[in-house]
């Protein structure tokens, strides 16, 4: 019996017996949501999804069905485009796409809907482009059928950085392809020419092949190799020496010497070396670009932390961007506020954990201020907007963070430091070589100098670090750790101190029942199921603590704002909520109680539970030689309990974001490299200033968006693991650098002495780079 969910791989709660039938077996699932999604997929004949996926699905959360917005014309305008006739093309961002199997599932599932003309899913960008007939199907119907199989969508908004990098990628790919095709073609002529050198060749034939090699190399040098020339030029302007300089010099020299030889029908041609060199270099560039592009995509997606739509009092659903100060918006229970504002009708509770990390909702009544991104918990309110976008409270914190990031010392890599003088010495050695050879054998001087330039091309050296980092990012991904900033990896290995936030990081960030006090003759288990049945009607965070396998169903129940939930079951009147509401004479200290006909039957004590494996993870961190500290905005006693339980000696309670920030700075001033783990928006400034910042996947959007590392499955033992893996990556980088430098040290004297022809130099250069790449790739498995 495996104890993880068939659909989403989450652990299965105890005493839960939900299953789906798959290939004749009964497979366990973790919740009703997963069960219905899996059932739908299997019944639809789409079971191949489970056979071929290589990442588990995301757990479908129960969300309010708000797909109706998608039919609003003003809302559609932002992401839909009419194409021919009544066909409309919509671009959507789909949450939860993890692998190619998801894409297949979505294409099949939507393709079966009448009126859907074409469905295309891009896995890497989580983008769905769909063409449908407006007369036969509504977009809301498509959206809700996606939600049925567990995917949530939002309008696609092109992230400009991502669009730019996609455009660059296309251009780079074309340059690479062009160089590759030309490489093959020039090689054909080169073989004939080399053979001709040995066995004799008619001079007119030799000239013919040289001219055609020249013709083919023209687009390669002028177009494909242009990034190197541009790079070298800007390096000259900035009066610095980059890797591009010797590359550009080598290409330009070899090419012009070859043209001279072709025109004057004398000397040697190096078209093959020029084109091959360009091709191999571009291949490296392209691989680097692929890794970077992925990173841009992830960042863009994580930054969407404000709702994308709002319900305008007069105009109905509108894109959140179109809201201005003074507008009145209506916010339903369970929705986030789209902007800062003041309540002008209704009263509710707001969950401001995004900003404060405090998960207990705060009462909001007339004229109270609500903040963008926080969640309206229990009833509909109307809000007059006072600030939008960057002006709102969360936006200001964002600004704080940007400032903190600017102040962060840049991570300088070993290669950057040494590449300057390395390149300088290459150029110097090549010129000296040319001069010495020119004195003795003038007609060999040029190709020897070229060989020196090519063979010592610091490609392997420049690849050593980035390739190892990229490959390490993939290794992290397999461990369910998302690294959004590759330069954090070398830092991770050298971390000396870890500061944890408490709520949502060490703890689950939501209350759960830790103790019950049964005052009645009823079975506690039965009462818990009644409580779960009632709480199913509430959006309140406390309701999540009552998640029973089979709740007693209530036909109807009513949420009493700020108090609790009440409903009728047969002839009895049941209530769940604060003890004082149930019985005004109660002096119970419990957080929640359940009452029947006004008599309290059972009391529940709630606490924010510590994540599993916490103690072990802290132990492992200490054994790695890392100090563990705890900084929390919570009260002293609750922080003390957590810290003692986990074995953390150094902790601070009731910290403001400013105090956390100061603590971090003082540690850094003592010369310690600090990793900060946090999840609330209040942690964001600290996250910006830490050497490495880590957020949990469920943390506040802004915290995730700016964290260097995100723990996707929220395990605490991911922390020692990520530090160990970073140390392995560092070893790999040192190996690679040693290899690259060793190769250059060996090849250089040979080339200077004239033992290496240019084509062999190009092969040697590529082989050395290949060794570095292959060595680095071992990290990703």
């Amino acid at each position, binding site marked *: 019996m495996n104890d993880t969910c068939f659909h989403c791989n989450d652990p299965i709660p105890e005493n839960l017996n939900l299953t789906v039938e798959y290939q004749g077996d009964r497979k366990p699932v973790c919740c009703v949501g997963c069960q219905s999604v899996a059932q739908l997929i299997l019944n639809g*004949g789409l079971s*191949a999804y489970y*056979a*071929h996926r290589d990442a588990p699905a995301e757990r479908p959360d129960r969300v309010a069905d708000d797909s109706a917005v998608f039919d609003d014309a003003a809302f559609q305008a932002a992401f839909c485009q009419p194409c021919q006739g009544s066909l409309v093309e919509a671009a959507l961002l789909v949450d939860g796409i993890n*692998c*190619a*199997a998801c*894409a*297949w599932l979505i294409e*099949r599932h939507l393709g079966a809907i009448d009126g859907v003309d074409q469905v295309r*899913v*891009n*896995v*890497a*960008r989580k983008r769905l482009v769909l063409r449908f007939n407006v007369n036969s199907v509504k977009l809301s119907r498509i959206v809700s059928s996606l939600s049925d199989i567990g995917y949530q969508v939002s309008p696609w908004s092109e992230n400009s950085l991502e669009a730019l990098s*996609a455009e660059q990628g*296309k251009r780079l*790919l*074309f340059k690479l*392809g*062009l160089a590759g*095709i*030309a490489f093959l*073609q020039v090689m*054909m002529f080169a073989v004939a020419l080399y053979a001709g050198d040995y066995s004799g060749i*008619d001079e007119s*034939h030799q000239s*013919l*092949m040289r001219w*055609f090699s020249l*013709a*083919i190399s023209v*687009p390669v040098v002028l177009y494909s190799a242009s990034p190197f020339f541009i790079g070298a030029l800007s390096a000259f302007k900035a009066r610095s020496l980059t890797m591009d300089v010797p590359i550009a010099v080598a290409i330009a020299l070899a090419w012009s010497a070859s043209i001279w030889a072709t025109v004057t029908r004398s000397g040697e041609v190096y078209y093959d070396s020029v084109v091959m060199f360009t091709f191999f270099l571009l291949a490296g560039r392209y691989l680097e670009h692929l890794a970077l592009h992925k990173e841009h995509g992830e960042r863009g997606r994580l930054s969407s932390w404000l709702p994308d739509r709002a319900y305008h009092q007069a105009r109905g659903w509108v894109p959140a961007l179109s809201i201005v100060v003074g507008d009145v918006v209506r916010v339903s229970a369970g929705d986030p506020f789209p902007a800062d504002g003041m309540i002008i009708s209704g009263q509710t509770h707001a969950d401001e954990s995004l900003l404060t990390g405090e998960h207990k909702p705060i009462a909001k009544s007339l004229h109270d201020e609500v903040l963008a991104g926080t969640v309206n918990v229990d009833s509909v309110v109307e809000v007059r907007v006072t600030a939008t976008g960057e002006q709102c409270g969360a936006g200001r914190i964002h600004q704080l963070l940007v400032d903190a990031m600017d102040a962060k010392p840049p991570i300088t890599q070993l290669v950057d430091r040494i590449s300057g003088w390395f390149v300088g010495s290459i150029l110097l050695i090549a010129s000296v070589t040319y001069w010495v050879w020119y004195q003795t054998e003038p007609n060999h001087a040029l190709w020897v100098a070229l060989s020196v330039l090519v063979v010592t091309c610091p490609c392997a050296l420049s690849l050593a670090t980035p390739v190892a980092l990229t490959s390490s990012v993939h290794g992290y991904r397999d461990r369910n750790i998302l690294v959004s900033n590759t330069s954090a990896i070398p830092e991770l290995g050298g971390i000396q101190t870890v500061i944890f936030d408490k709520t949502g990081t060490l703890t689950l960030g939501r209350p759960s029942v830790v103790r019950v006090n049964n005052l009645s003759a009823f079975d506690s288990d039965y009462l818990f199921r009644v409580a779960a049945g009632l709480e199913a009607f509430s959006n309140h965070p406390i309701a999540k603590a009552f998640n029973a396998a089979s709740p007693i169903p209530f036909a109807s129940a009513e949420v009493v704002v700020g108090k609790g939930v009440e409903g009728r079951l047969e002839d009895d009147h049941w209530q769940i909520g604060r003890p004082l509401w149930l019985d005004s004479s109660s002096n119970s200290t419990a957080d929640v109680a359940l009452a029947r006909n006004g008599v309290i039957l059972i009391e529940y004590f709630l606490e924010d539970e510590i994540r599993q494996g916490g103690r072990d993870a802290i132990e492992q961190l200490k054994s790695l030689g890392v100090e563990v500290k705890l900084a929390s905005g919570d009260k002293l006693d609750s922080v003390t309990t957590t810290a003692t339980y986990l074995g953390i000696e150094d902790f601070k309670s009731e910290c403001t974001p400013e105090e956390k920030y100061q603590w971090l700075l003082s540690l850094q001033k003592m010369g310690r490299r600090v990793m900060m783990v946090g999840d609330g928006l209040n942690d964001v400034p600290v996250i910006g200033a830490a050497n490495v910042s880590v957020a949990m996947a469920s943390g506040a959007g802004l915290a995730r968006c700016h964290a260097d590392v995100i723990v996707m499955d929220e395990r605490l033992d991911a922390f020692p693991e990520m530090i160990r893996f970073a140390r392995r990556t560092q070893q790999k980088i040192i190996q690679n650098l040693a290899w690259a430098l060793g190769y250059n040290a060996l090849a250089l004297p040979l080339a200077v002495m004239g033992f290496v022809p240019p084509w062999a130099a190009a092969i040697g250069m590529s082989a050395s780079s290949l060794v570095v790449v292959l060595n680095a790739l071992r990290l990703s498995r």
Partner: protein
Amino acid sequence: MESLYLLIPLALVIFAIIVAALFWAVRSGQFDDLEREGTRILFDDDLEGKDDQ
């Protein structure tokens, strides 16, 4: 060996055609999602197997 004067220019023409084809393929997004296309064949096989039953 006179044929070389025909064949080599011909090779150049073919080279140009291939480069044009590559240009079209990159522009039209043929290389946008390499992950997805690699596995497409697996799924369609399975689906046909299912229809046969």
